[in-house]
């Protein structure tokens, strides 16, 4: 589908500054870093999670493990999906019971992904706390879910699409607002 780029909201420098600021907030709130683990939601949550882990390593010299969560099997719209979603591996090779889990995603929208991620987490163990980290909060929540750490609050219309691009998988670090082209 054709799409039109409406605005570039963040570039590499802005993303980096946001991550540093949010990492400081994480450190402020979590005095016992040894109890902290990071779980990134596929796909871009993984890379954000790894970047946070690296920043904590630089600042505090503590190794924070990063796990990968695939929420496909927990989706609430599973029975209505038009196309088949490939399941990918959930790779959390550390116990999460009694841990402070930092759940990381790129964009917070309806909240349904986070609901699925939390159900999936609780099947793996009973965390002490779950804290939500998102780079962009674009509003339009359909569930009572709120983030603990936000890079940028971005008011959008429902038609618009927020694209977070990260250099690990995309050609650059940037956040774009796009809109599907009008039907002719």
């Amino acid at each position, binding site marked *: 589908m054709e799409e039109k780029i409406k605005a570039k909201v963040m570039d590499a420098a802005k993303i980096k500054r946001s991550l540093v600021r949010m990492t400081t907030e994480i450190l402020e709130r979590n005095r016992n870093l040894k109890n902290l683990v990071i779980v990134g939601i596929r796909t871009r949550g993984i890379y954000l999670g790894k970047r946070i882990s690296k920043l904590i390593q630089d600042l505090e010299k503590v190794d924070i493990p990063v796990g990968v969560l695939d929420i496909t099997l*927990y989706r609430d719209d*599973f029975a*209505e999906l038009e196309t088949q*979603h*490939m399941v990918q*591996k959930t790779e959390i090779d550390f116990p999460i019971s009694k841990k402070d889990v930092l759940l990381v995603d790129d964009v917070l929208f309806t909240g349904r992904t986070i609901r699925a991620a939390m159900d999936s987490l609780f099947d793996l163990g009973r965390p002490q706390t779950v804290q939500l980290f998102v780079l962009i909060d674009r509003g339009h929540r359909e569930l009572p879910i709120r983030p603990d750490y936000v890079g940028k609050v971005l008011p959008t219309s429902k038609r618009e699409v927020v694209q977070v691009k990260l250099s690990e998988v995309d050609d650059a670090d940037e956040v774009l607002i796009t809109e599907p082209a009008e039907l002719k």
Partner: protein
Amino acid sequence: MEFKQRHLLGIQHLDVSDILTVLDTAESLSEISTREVKKVPTLRGKTIVNLFFEPSTRTRSSFELAAKRLSADIINFSQQTSSVVKGESLKDTVLNFEAMNPDALVIRHSCSGAPHFVSTFCRSHVINAGDGSHEHPTQALLDAFTIRQAKKSFRDLRVVIVGDILHSRVARSNVFLLSKLGAQITLVGPPSLLPEEFKNFGATISHSLDESLAGADVIMMLRIQTERQKANFFPSIREYRNLYCLTEKRFQLANKDAIIMHPGPINRGVEISSEMADSVKSVILKQVENGIAIRMAILYLLLGGRERETAD
């Protein structure tokens, strides 16, 4: 990637992309069986019927566990305790189960083509769990999955399949599957159990196990299926064992990192010696473990997502 089938009736009509989709999905799902809570909610509300018109240990319980780990409900039917003994036909049995609105039927039957026949008149997804001497697709898929874990690539892999090829649905499904993936297959057995026609499937035929083992990467042993043999196909078990039993001495002829496979049930001391069945080179129990992941993948790919319109 997408799995384009409505039913899983055999390997023959699958393409490479279908096969790789199943293997990759199984790879993702295998982690669930290692969790403390071995269950995900994905197929909640789906009903699966295990229709087993032939005895089975592994396949039936493997499908049952696969369904349960995906939160589907499953009921078991076995011929011995059913109205089939009162004369109910296959079609009527299936129609009665269909009236209970299941989403998938897993069928094992002693007649080749039974699952295909069922798929012509029922609404549910049909999964072939072994039909006569025709195909056993989930077995071949779990074999390929197990081989991929040990060998990484199928290209030019030398696979030797030994035993009662004539009656073996496992051999047929494996020949289809592994040749699609680029492996070189040699079928080995006494002439009475290994028809020349198998050359047409792209496999090499041999009657000497000793000669075939040189350079083998994968050795797949099969059971002598006395229940399907309507005549005497070889003079004695003792003679068969002397010529075709996988022993430690014979195993030395293969590549040193070769793996030993068997779809089970094994008859120790007939087609495989006890030492070989239990050796570190044997992946026989790994096959059983992988069977659950493969069957979860098949159930997920057939039952997950909205009912797709398929042109068939």
